[in-house]
């Protein structure tokens, strides 16, 4: 099998805008799937509403394009009924952390063996560029012309409330670390969350001063650094994988770490 066999290339070009980061995630996901032997007989893709949700349609797998925010209840039910399947959720930050936030909280608690790839572009892209749950404070968006008034949600902190947390942060620029994070997440025997910073040039980047998707990728390249070996949590703009190999006692979860704009949760 080759990587391109994982994709419905006959449906290309995709609907994603030129310069969108989602295709980079799909490419690395397909690469990892090929590497670890995931195919349409052993894997199901569950996607949410938003630009990211279209990914299932472009992959040679059976795929459920759920209602907005409902990837996790659907994915968890599929995994419950068919534990032999690999269940991979691909959803945007708004779908996952805002409208689907309650499900996220409880899936983290129940720790089902599903993999979540969260396309985190810090914006509601498909609807034109409104403030999302991950939008940094002060960002100008369609729905926050004077700057977003609130700190973004602390995804790392939420995931770390799981006794066996798996949280990885990467960007679409850092293809190697992203591939490694996706691979380890798929192999992790529990709830694994990969938080992928990804550019939305058309409905976010230009409004906040970037001239092109390339500039946004350059920004990821220069601003993100690998976390030090042995880190128990990730600082802002750090790449890395945080895994609780040994269960953390209930009520003594790992340090939540700061949210993406540096404010303590």
């Amino acid at each position: 099998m080759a990587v391109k066999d994982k994709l419905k290339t006959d449906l290309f070009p995709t609907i994603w805008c030129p310069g969108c980061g989602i295709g980079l995630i799909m490419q690395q996901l397909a690469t990892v799937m090929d590497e670890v032997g995931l195919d349409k007989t052993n894997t199901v893709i569950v996607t949410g509403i938003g630009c990211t949700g279209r990914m299932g349609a472009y992959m040679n797998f059976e795929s459920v394009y759920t209602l907005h925010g409902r990837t996790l209840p659907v994915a968890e039910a599929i995994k419950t009924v068919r534990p032999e399947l690999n269940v991979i959720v691909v959803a945007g930050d708004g779908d996952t952390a805002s409208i689907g936030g309650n499900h996220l909280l409880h899936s983290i608690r129940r720790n089902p063996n599903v993999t979540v790839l969260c396309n985190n572009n810090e914006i509601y892209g498909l609807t034109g560029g409104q403030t999302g749950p991950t939008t940094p404070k002060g960002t100008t968006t369609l729905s926050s012309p004077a700057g977003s008034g609130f700190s973004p949600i602390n995804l790392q902190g939420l995931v770390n409330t799981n006794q066996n947390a798996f949280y990885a942060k990467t960007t679409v620029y850092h293809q190697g670390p992203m591939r490694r994070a996706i691979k380890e997440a798929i192999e992790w025997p529990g709830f694994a969350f990969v938080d992928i910073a990804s550019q939305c040039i058309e409905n976010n980047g230009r409004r906040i001063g970037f001239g092109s998707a390339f500039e946004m990728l350059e920004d990821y390249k220069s601003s993100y650094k690998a976390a030090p070996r042995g880190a128990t949590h990730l600082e802002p703009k750090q790449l890395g994988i945080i895994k609780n190999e040994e269960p953390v006692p209930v009520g003594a979860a790992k340090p939540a770490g700061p949210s993406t704009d540096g404010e303590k949760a």
Partner: protein
Amino acid sequence: MTKRLVQGNEAVFLGAIKAGAGYFAGYPISPSSEILAQASGYAAKHPEFKFLQEEDEIASANAILGASLAGAKSFTATSGPGFSLMQEAVGYGHKVGIPAVIVDVMRVGPGTGMPTMPGQGDILQARYGSTGDYTSFVFYPSTVAECFEYTIHAFNAAEETRSPVILLSDAFLGHLNEVVDLDTIDVPVVNRTLEPLASGGTRLFSGVATYPDGEPATADSDEFIRQYLENRENRLKISEKYAFYEYGWNKDSDTLVIAFGITRRVAQPLAPHFALFRPIRLWPVLGNELTEIAARYKKIVVIEGSDGQYASVIEHMLLRRVERVPLLGGRMSLEAVREGLDRIGLLPKESEPGSATAADASASASVA
């Protein structure tokens, strides 16, 4: 084989198991919680039966759809407020074509309302609660034995229509205990109709308007209309197999009472005075049957636990005036029925023949 006391909610659960259910997800809500409890207890003893108490009803409704796609017959149980939360998923299930059963044990709404009191205020919600147009099946039993029987039919109809089917009950019926022998109820079970996920294909199960190959059809009105009409025609054809109703009582009366679920039981002592039409399949409306039967009567009165939800539907369908006896605020009593009939001048006089006892008015069930 053995007669025993069975509760309405328990009978629903046992019917689901009989129908082959393999997955339940739910959230506690009165007066449906016994079904959740039954499911959890059953799952503890039968590992092949999967159970999850969800964080909310939105998760429950979406989970049963996911479980069904994965290959299990699935169901959830709730009451009015939870059912409202599930409505988006109902429409999604219709669009995608996913078999599942949602049990709504009705209480008095709106809002949190009267959580332990029986109501029938979800008649329209059960049909029109989700956004857009779809053709849904809704059944409403009125005895504990029927709770068992029609739960099986609901699962069967879900498979045949590939849609979420609604089984209505109410706080009164759900908590009613009756002596029944469920082993004597024999309903053939329809097997799964949907090939489970990861069968080797590359299907896309999408709530978005799509062409058969999965490409978006989000701006193609002709394709949308084609799919919708095909779906509606298919469902209405299937509905002919599920034309369940009861026609009986005093058929020589000049007044036809229409009552369903628990209100039919409450009104039973009036049997000598009125003819009865009890739809068991509330939706799609039993148009042909009702039109033919209603034509024999001068007056029609709907006794129901809402302010005329189904009366309006029947009035609209028959294009003639329909009297209303609403039983509101959980007041499901013969006294309330009599007061309602009195208000519209239809209360039988005590001296009229047959009014002394209802014992001789055995309900003659004519179930198609």
